[in-house]
């Protein structure tokens, strides 16, 4: 699926995959992210950082994507860490208590270093 309203840029840092999101993550675009994360995990990648710097919007459909995969990656010793969220996007995570389950950090480098520590 290609949607100009939402794009994902892929980068690798050793065995850590970094996904940079851009645009809107809603019920229309969430399947795109679900597919991208699913492909990564199916290929054996379980250390994932998702950068939100260029993401302007998220709804519960977007949050749900992370719930789909978090159990699988943690069972294999990995994690999905989230970084550089705009305050308005963080608020949506916070309203639902997601910071209880997900590690949300200020910069990619912090998330990357936690995987390599």
């Amino acid at each position, binding site marked *: 699926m290609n949607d100009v309203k939402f794009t994902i840029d892929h980068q690798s840092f050793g065995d850590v995959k970094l996904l940079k999101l851009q645009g809107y993550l809603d019920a229309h675009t969430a399947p795109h992210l679900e597919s991208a994360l699913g492909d990564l995990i199916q290929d054996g990648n379980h250390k994932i950082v998702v950068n939100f710097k260029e993401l302007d919007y998220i709804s519960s459909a977007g949050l749900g994507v992370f719930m789909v995969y978090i159990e699988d990656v943690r069972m294999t010793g990995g994690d999905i860490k989230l970084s550089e969220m705009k305050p308005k996007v963080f608020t*949506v995570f916070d*309203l639902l208590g997601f910071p209880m389950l997900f590690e949300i950090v200020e910069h990619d480098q912090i998330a990357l270093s936690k995987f390599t520590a």
Partner: protein
Amino acid sequence: MVATIKPQTNQISARGNTADLEHIREFVKSQSNSAGFGETDAFQIALAVDEACSNLIRHSYNNDETREFVVTVEVANQQLIIKIMDNGVAFDPLSVPEPNMNEYFKKFKHGGLGVFLMRKVMTEISYQPALNTNSPNILTLTKHFI
């Protein structure tokens, strides 16, 4: 088309297609800003409407883009009143029990948080199922000015 909807000052029509969510959010956010709400409130009001419309498109209209619904916004008595009018199968979102988030995370559940978010950010929510085949279901989301 949704039948017997009275003309409103500000309204937008949308299809049973999630591609229309962005236009709905832009409309609601712009209306909220014009009514005097700041960026944070306007963002959250648009989020609540997005959640309601996402549920409607997926679960009631089954992503059938030939079906339409209408979102109206009006300002009255120090409150912003948003109505989402559809002609699908009636479903009262208020019948959805509030999730226990500790349990939700413990069991790695996913989905089903849209109504919870709507309740978190709006002052009041009410639902009126269609009275007859010519009238729409009406979900009303209200935000009070502080």
